[in-house]
């Protein structure tokens, strides 16, 4: 268990930023979601060891969140949302510098800085001044300084915002690779749900200071009944009638997406047979899951 907290509460004056938040995080990338003002930054501050909670206990990587805050910050890597760099330095100096500040000996920090810069894809530009870096490169640099001291836990705050489509995909691939290592736990806070779906196996959804949902995405998104989404080429009226005759409920949404609600016990092969019978070609066939966006809306209790 890399993070375990029970009953965290914190108030800013009258405002209850967090109330009774408890969870345990194991392996795999975890997404932290929530509307603005839900308490995400407060939670991150407590987990990173900047703030002691008013009530509640917890450990991050085995260190107590009240008594061993410096130890937490030593073992954790943080990639902030805003751009941050030091003018007049090049990437190697920058990365090594922050490695040293985390407690690495100077030569080790230098060696490791090069390694990490290769890993994040900045090998060609690592001797250039940071002032000349593009937005995508700055994101990678932030990732490099978060990884240089080999943290066991990585916090990434909006890692893909403000990047152009190419940059976004490249950063996503980088995060996917980091998250694929079993011994690094990654916690990602992002408003771009598509990215959370790509990267994370589980999510924590906060709303108004409380934990609104928590668990593996697969489990949260699963629907109990058999609902399939299908797209076909060809005239689909006959196809739909055929399925309805088999006691399915069939809906068609815009975009020509056909939703088929199958009764229990029916074999999905029937869908293909129906297609063959009515002369349509199935081009898209997926067992329906709630989209993360809908899950989010449901859980946050709106709409």
């Amino acid at each position, binding site marked *: 268990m890399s993070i375990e907290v029970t009953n965290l509460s914190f108030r800013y004056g009258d405002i209850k930023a967090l109330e009774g938040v408890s969870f345990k995080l194991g392996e795999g990338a975890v997404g932290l*979601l*929530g*509307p*603005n*003002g839900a308490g995400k930054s407060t939670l991150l501050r407590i987990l990173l060891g900047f703030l002691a909670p008013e009530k509640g206990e917890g450990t991050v990587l085995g260190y107590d969140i009240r008594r061993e805050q410096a130890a937490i910050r030593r073992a954790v890597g943080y990639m902030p949302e805003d751009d941050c760099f030091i003018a007049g330095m090049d990437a190697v100096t920058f990365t090594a510098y922050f490695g040293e500040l985390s407690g690495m000996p100077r030569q080790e920090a230098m060696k490791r800085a090069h390694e990490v810069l290769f890993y994040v894809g900045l090998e060609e530009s690592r001797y250039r001044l940071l002032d000349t870096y*593009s*937005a995508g490169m700055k994101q990678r640099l932030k990732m490099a300084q978060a990884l240089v001291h080999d943290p066991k836990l990585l916090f990434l705050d909006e890692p893909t*915002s*403000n*990047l*152009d*489509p*190419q940059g*976004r*995909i490249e950063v996503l691939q980088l995060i996917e690779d980091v998250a694929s290592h079993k011994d690094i736990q990654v916690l990602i806070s992002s*408003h*771009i*749900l*598509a990215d959370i779906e790509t990267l994370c196996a589980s999510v924590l959804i906060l709303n108004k200071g409380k934990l609104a949902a928590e668990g593996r995405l697969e489990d949260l998104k699963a629907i109990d009944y058999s609902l399939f989404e299908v797209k076909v*080429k060809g005239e689909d009226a006959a196809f739909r009638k055929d399925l309805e005759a088999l006691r399915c409920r069939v809906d068609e949404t815009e975009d020509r997406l056909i939703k088929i609600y199958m009764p229990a016990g029916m074999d*999905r*092969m029937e869908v*293909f*047979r129906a*297609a*063959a019978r009515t002369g349509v*070609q*199935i*081009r*898209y*066939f*997926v*067992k329906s899951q709630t989209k993360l*966006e809908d899950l*989010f*809306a449901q859980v*946050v209790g*709106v*709409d």
Partner: protein
Amino acid sequence: MTPVIETKNLSKWYGNVLGLSDVSLEIESGITGLLGPNGAGKSTFMKLITGQMKPNIGAVTIRGKRVWNDYRLFSRVGFCPEPDAFYEDVTGWEFLTGLLRFYGFTRAEAADRATRALAIVELSADKDRKVRSYSRGMRQRVKFAQAIAHDPDVMILDEPFSGLDPLGKRRLIKLVKDFESEGRTVLVSSHVLPEIEAVTSRIIMIHQGKILAQGDIHMVRDLIESHPHMISLRSPAARAVAAAFVDDASVLKMTFGTDGRSLVVETHNRDAFFSRLQAVVVEKGIEVDEIDSPDDNLQAVFDYLVGK
């Protein structure tokens, strides 16, 4: 359909730096997505459409009238720019009503429209606070409000969803889609391609100052011949399916997933493939978990055209 926005041979340079080169387009009513890498010319294009700059060659017309210097036309265009540009010391209310007065509305009309716009973006509770105290998401919503408050029938939105949380995005996406059904014209630009896909399937792609692609994204995909179509299949009998296609000449490549349950096929002839697949599934009783086209989306089209 008559186009709402039309450009002919539109070109713009900044000194000798290229902005746009020879862009001829017709944008119809409804929602069109505008995408391109950084520096491709998107903001130049938007500035030319909203009349903030004069083109070097060519012209932009909205409903047949040239945009440059036609202030009457501006009242029918709403622009939500990307950077933050506010008077920090006024309240949200003052900001909106102030801008509305510029359009020539009376004080009463301006107040009325501002109220409605603020209600739509859900900022009514914070309208009397200074803009300086607004969070990023709130500033974005005020920007959006000023773009819609004067009821324009053409809207140009540059990164309208940035800084919003998922719920905020969802609301604005719904709002933008409502505009389409009201017969307005919307041009949306964003770097987050899934967000564009959520609002429209019509796109314009700009790269290096020129139009790289235009139209419905699925049709654009069909036109890209250099990349054969990818079709993915998940099934416990994936290899059995593959076996059935090994001697099919229209299948160019087959890749097996490491979990033993997935297969990705590349082919130039989707029609033939799907027909055959259906037949094989029914004939051999293959249990299918999923059939999908992984590269029939905006990101893939973008990658193929911009050529990583």
